[in-house]
């Protein structure tokens, strides 16, 4: 048989890689670099659309206009609660490492996070000073508050559920399905359901409250409750993945340990506390970091349920980027914020990657 033109291994490999590399370069690498490029310009969406030269190179001005202000100073006592907490965590991580309860890597990660907690809240505009963008840091703070409530909420409830559901029976399978079901819904279905659930006039929660003689809460329009409402909807929505990851982690704990512990009368809560938890630390950190990355990018819940309100109390970072870019047409400033978002997400991805590596 006459050999047809044969590709060498290298040629065949590049041929197979070409479709992916082309899309990857065009729709991910190039936009990423272009995003940084845009963030260095005064770039108005509409002006540049009509005249491509209507942009001006401004260097790092956009970053300054977003994150900095006039007469900004730093003090250790600006936000005593947060900064004190940071200091405490810093001491704690050093101490725990000394006592051998925390691996060096975890101690470093923990320490860096607590240092940031001491550092960032310390900035404030001094007399006569002001932030150039008064909404940016409060928006970041809202996002962090959202993460700070959602992540522990999801993690703890998913962990308890997984521990309870960790049996291969039909009934348990059905229960798992019920808890997981909400996870496959889209964000717009979730917000549709919960907008009406929370409605003070038509909502299920209000109807039940009224039956018991209570006054319905204006969940989505009351500044005290709006963030809570979004957190509740999000926990309801996203418990599934965490539960599944925990169930997978539980499978890896040998049954023998439990049997041995049962001989020592450690069952139920005791077994959970002394066996399940210590054997699950790796999975817990994976789930926590995963959730942080996922929920830091929250957009739909805030955009659809509360429109960032009332009074900006549920305004989150991605929604602010979206508004700055597409309502105010200020692509330069929006891109600077997007780069900021990427830096935060990227550092968590690196931590995630390191933890994943450690396992192998």
């Amino acid at each position, binding site marked *: 048989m006459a050999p047809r033109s044969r*590709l060498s291994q290298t040629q065949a*490999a590049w041929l*197979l890689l070409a479709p992916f590399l082309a899309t990857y370069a065009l*729709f991910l690498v190039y936009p990423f670099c272009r995003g940084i490029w845009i963030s260095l310009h005064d770039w108005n969406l509409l002006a540049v659309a009509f005249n491509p030269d209507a942009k001006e190179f401004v260097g790092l001005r956009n970053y300054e206009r977003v994150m900095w202000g006039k007469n900004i100073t730093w003090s250790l006592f600006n936000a005593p609660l947060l900064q004190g907490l940071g200091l405490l965590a810093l001491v704690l991580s050093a101490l725990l490492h000394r006592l051998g309860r925390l691996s060096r890597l975890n101690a470093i990660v923990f320490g860096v996070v607590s240092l940031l907690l001491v550092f960032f809240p310390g900035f404030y505009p001094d007399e006569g000073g002001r932030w150039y963008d008064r909404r940016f840091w409060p928006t970041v703070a809202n996002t962090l508050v959202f993460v700070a409530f959602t992540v522990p909420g999801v993690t703890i409830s998913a962990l308890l559920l997984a521990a309870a559901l960790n049996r291969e029976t039909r*009934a348990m399978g059905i229960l798992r399905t019920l808890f997981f079901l909400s996870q496959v819904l889209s964000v717009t279905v979730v917000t549709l359901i919960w907008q009406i659930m929370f409605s003070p006039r038509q909502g299920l929660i209000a109807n039940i409250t009224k039956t018991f003689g209570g006054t319905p809460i204006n969940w989505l329009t009351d500044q005290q409750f709006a963030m809570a409402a979004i957190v509740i909807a999000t926990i309801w929505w996203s418990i599934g993945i965490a539960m599944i*990851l925990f169930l997978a982690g539980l499978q890896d704990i040998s049954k023998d340990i439990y049997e041995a512990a049962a001989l020592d009368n450690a069952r139920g809560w005791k077994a959970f506390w002394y066996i399940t938890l210590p054997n699950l630390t790796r999975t817990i950190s994976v789930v926590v970091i995963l959730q942080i990355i996922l929920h830091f990018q929250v957009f*739909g819940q805030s955009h659809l349920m509360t429109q960032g309100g009332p009074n900006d109390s549920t305004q989150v970072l991605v929604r602010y980027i979206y508004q700055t870019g597409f309502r105010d047409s200020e692509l330069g400033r929006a*891109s600077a914020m*997007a780069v900021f978002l990427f830096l935060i997400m990227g550092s968590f991805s690196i931590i995630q990657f390191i933890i994943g590596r450690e396992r192998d």
Partner: protein
Amino acid sequence: MNRSYYWLVIGLSIPAFLWLVPTLWMVSLSFQPNEVLARTTSSTLFGLIPLPFTAENYASLFSFGQTPWWFMNSIIVAVGMTLGVLFVSTTAGYALARMDFPFKRTLMIICLIGLMVPEQAVFIPLYTLFADFGWHNSYHALILPRMAVPIGVFLMMQFFKAIPQDIEEAARLDGVTWLRIFWYVMLPLARPAMMTLAILTFLYAWNDYLWPLVSAQQREYFTITLGLASIQSNFAQSEGLGRVMASGVIASLPVVILFLIFQRYVVQAMTVGGSKG
């Protein structure tokens, strides 16, 4: 099974039912007449039982309004994206897992960095890029960006790496070309992994909100997820609560059915998708 097991099942049934209530309520409201809902949403057992019953909301969804059209858009985008992602991921994944070529390590590191870039950090430059091409308000604008996400490549690469070498070597000795080995030997073996990736991609495509919101400004190119967002802000006045809820049910039906049939794959897909970004 002992008694404590049955207590556990009963004890867990209560939170499981509570977990189901919001979804159940949506379904129940979608089967009640709009006139009744305008008055009260708690006719029978807080509205959890659809009495008085009507299927009118679903009938009207299909006789007027854009929901069926949006539904078709979602099908086109989700199927198109799934096929596209499967194609680029299996080919690239195979090459990275089983073949040797210069700059392989560099390439892998470049792809790994791509995993760290969230969609939310590049949607602005992507918007300007597609605007320059004049591509917005089209199906390919909704499909193409996801094909660049390297997670599928890594998923397929891990799978291909786990296949024993000798299958391939036997074929190589017989003088079969690389592309033929890929097509006739490897792809049939990769079916379970492809299934997982397909479901992951389909779910993502169906539920994606931010990029369609930015890219599709004409209502003819809305996906059902985006369309549902556009009618829910003024649901009570213009559309009728029952009708909007019916749209919500229709929008969820494909993913819920997919989940119930392919539960094992869905769980696996979401675990992989979750733990890798």
